[in-house]
Structures are given as structure tokens and as C-alpha cells.
């Protein structure tokens, strides 16, 4: 069984912003140069702390978008009423310094050595940790079959679309667009429901590893749906993001 923890710094360290890449009109990927980065596992996250001139601080958590071995990257979605995300997606630029803490997490992680079929269910920006997992799979040549069910508002809202559409061997990506579909759309529409889960989920007797990430109501609905399909509750790994009404 792989080790649970990468022993990095336990507390805040200063990172320098490298390349920033706009993924969609409201989503940006930020590369970070972290001097004492001990490496990370696919699915882990880091915490960001910003400090204003008067000492006011704000902290948020972001999933790491890059695979182990790649430079540290986070992907941030700008929330209209947010406090931190507008700053990270619009103001922050290469050369700026921010404080980070991490890597964090031993629960919502996937190791390339795990042979079990993988089901990844993403709601919106919940796809970020799965991109780390998919890149890790590709970099290590792992062969576990993966299905990513990705729920997004519309096609322009799909993050990493070019990369996901490549669908390397053994990886299937299934989109469902909840608010708006292109005129020639032949994929799924509407929210993830029991029927779509039943279609996409690996049979329970294959003992799949399943991960669900996104806003809390999405995660609750999907996790309950998977349990209804027979997945043992303890084996459905969940990571909930704060969203609208929050203070991100």
C-alpha cells in the first residue's frame, strides 16, 4: 500500500506565480514555483493565503491541477461574488508571490499502481483534481480503465476540453451539459441522474474506485446515486467545493 503522506512543509511558504493560462472566460490555471515543494499525489490540494496591506487575510483551498512530477498548478474558477477568486483569475500575474500550504490530503487521491477501474464524476470546477489523476495515469503508463463523467453548464464552460477530448487509451470522457447545448449536440443534457450514472458507472462487482467532486449539492446527489447502484458508501470518495452563496 502506497504511503499516505508526502512530508512537506507543515505550514505556509511563499510561492512565486509562473505562467497563467486562461482555460475558459472565467477559469484560469496558475503555475506556482514553490521552493520547498516535496511533491504531491494526484487528487491532493493546497491552501492559498492572501494578505492585504492592512493585514486582512483570506484563505482558500484549491485542487492541484498538475500531475505528480509536473510543476505545481492550480485551476481557479472566478465566482462573481467571490473575494479571492476574482483576484486570482484577474489580478494575479507572473512574478507575484502568494502563500501556500500543502500538499494536503490522503483520502481523495489516486495512485497509478491501483489496477481497479476508475469512475470520476465532476461537477463544474470539480474536474480539477481529476485532471491531475488523468495526467498522472498518462505519465506513468498506468492501464486502469477510467471513465470521467463531467457535468458542465455549457460547452464553453468545459475546462481542459482540448486535453480531455484526446481520450488516451482506456480513458472515456462523457460530458453532460446542464444549461445550454450547441445546436448539433449529440451528447447528454441535463443534470447527472440515476439513469446516466447507471449507464456510465462500472459494475459494482469490478470493485471500481470512484471519486465525486464539485459543489456540495452535486456531490450529495451523485454519491447517493452511486450508493443506490450498489457501490459501498465507504468506497465512494467525495470532495465538496464551496460555491454560490459562499465567500470564494
Amino acid at each position, binding site marked *: 500500500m502506497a504511503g499516505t503522506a508526502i512530508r512537506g512543509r507543515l505550514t*505556509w511558504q*511563499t510561492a512565486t506565480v509562473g505562467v497563467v493560462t486562461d482555460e475558459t472566460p472565467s477559469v484560469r490555471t496558475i503555475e506556482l514555483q514553490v521552493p520547498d515543494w516535496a511533491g504531491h499525489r494526484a487528487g491532493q490540494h493546497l491552501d492559498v*493565503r*492572501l*494578505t*492585504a*496591506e*492592512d*493585514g*486582512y*487575510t*483570506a484563505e482558500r483551498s484549491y485542487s492541484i491541477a498538475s500531475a505528480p512530477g509536473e510543476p505545481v498548478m492550480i485551476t481557479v474558477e472566478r465566482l462573481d*461574488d467571490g*473575494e479571492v477568486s476574482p*483576484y486570482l483569475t484577474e*489580478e*494575479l500575474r507572473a512574478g*507575484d*508571490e*502568494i*502563500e501556500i500550504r500543502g500538499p494536503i490530503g490522503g483520502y481523495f487521491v489516486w495512485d497509478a499502481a491501483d489496477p481497479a477501474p476508475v469512475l470520476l464524476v465532476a461537477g463544474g470546477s470539480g474536474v480539477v483534481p481529476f485532471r491531475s489523476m488523468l495526467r498522472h495515469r498518462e505519465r506513468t503508463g498506468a492501464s486502469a480503465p477510467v471513465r470521467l463523467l463531467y457535468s458542465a453548464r455549457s460547452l464553453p464552460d468545459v475546462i481542459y476540453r482540448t486535453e480531455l477530448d484526446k481520450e488516451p487509451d482506456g480513458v472515456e470522457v462523457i460530458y453532460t451539459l446542464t444549461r445550454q447545448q450547441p445546436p448539433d449536440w449529440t451528447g447528454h443534457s441535463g443534470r447527472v441522474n440515476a439513469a446516466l450514472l447507471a449507464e456510465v458507472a462500472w459494475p459494482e462487482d469490478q470493485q471500481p474506485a470512484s471519486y465525486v467532486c464539485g459543489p456540495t449539492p452535486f456531490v450529495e446527489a451523485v454519491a447517493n446515486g452511486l450508493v443506490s447502484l450498489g457501490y459501498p458508501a465507504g468506497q465512494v470518495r467525495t470532495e465538496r467545493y464551496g460555491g454560490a*452563496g459562499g*465567500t470564494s
Partner: protein
Amino acid sequence: MMLAMSPVSRGFHGRHREPAADASRIPPGQYATTDFPVLSAGPTPRTPLEKWSFSLRQAGETLRTWSWEEVQDLPAEDVTADIHCVTRWSKLDTRWRAVSIDTLLAQVDHQARFVLAFCDGGYTTNLPLADVTGGQGWLAYSYDGAPLQPEHGGPARLLVPHLYFWKSAKWVRGLDLLAADEPGFWERYGYNNYGDPWREQRYAGD
């Protein structure tokens, strides 16, 4: 003036902060906001009005209970108040429709020196009787001209604006009338027992 222990993040200003027209209305360490942030320690209760009631209790006995309709029939006031949250935001000129705690207490015989507000979801907070009476405390059921929404404490919350807003208990269902003080939820977890924003009494021992 707080020294920043961490490197300053260039260009970061934090939540929309308004320069207050009258800085003397902003207690030390606070900033004015036009938002109304929602803070919560647990799931939002959603008690239907037909199940809701407000009670005054003393020594294990319920002295008086009001149903929702009975509360609506009580004389109410329009209250405009500045509110101050211990998480540092202040919101000026908030408008409420509320029944004075004096009105409710006048209907019972009590020997209280302190109250402990109890709420749906299990939240509690304590106050000296002197701080919820004399026109300083209300049972508020309307905010900004509309029924108080669940995320802001509806159907009704305590409103005691001269203290930090954690004392204005959301989803309040009554007051325990006590002879001796008893700490409530945040008071037990390290916040100040009294909570005067003008003396910056945020934490225990401040």
C-alpha cells in the same frame, strides 16, 4: 494597527469594503460592507411557521409560549441598526421589523439576571438581562422589508446590535431566564462572554 506577519499580496484588497461615510460608526478592527455575509455553524434549519413557537423558560418550566400568529399580533417596531460581526465586517443601517424583548418579558414573572437564547439546530448564546432589555434587544422577523430568510436566521432571530452579532442568535426559539450566567456555543469555544465591539471583546480574556 496590526502588523502583517505575512508577505503582502500585491493588489489584493479583500471583500468589497466601503469607506464608511462616518468612520466613528465602525468599531476598532472592523470594516464596512454592503454585503450581508451568511455565517453558520451547522445546517440551516427550516422550521415551518405552523410548527414554530417562541418560549420563555425559567427553572425548567415554560412560563409562556407564543405561536407565530401570536408574535405577529404583538406590537412591533421598525428598528434601524448598525451590526458588527466578530469576523470583522460591519453593516450600517440595517432595517428590521421586530418585537422588543421588553414586550415579551413584561408578560411573565421572572427573577432572571441572565438569559440563554436557544435555537433550532442547537445554537445558544448568553447575555446579561440588562443587555436584552431597556430597548436594546428584539425578536426580529423581517429584514429590509421582507420576511427574514432562513440563511439569515428566519423565521425569527434575536437582534441585539450593540454586541457582536453572534449574540443575535439565528433561528431563536426562546430564552432561558437564569439567575447565574451560563456560556453559550461560541462562548464555550473561546469567544468573549460579553462581546462589546467598541472594546473589541472578541475572544475570551479580551
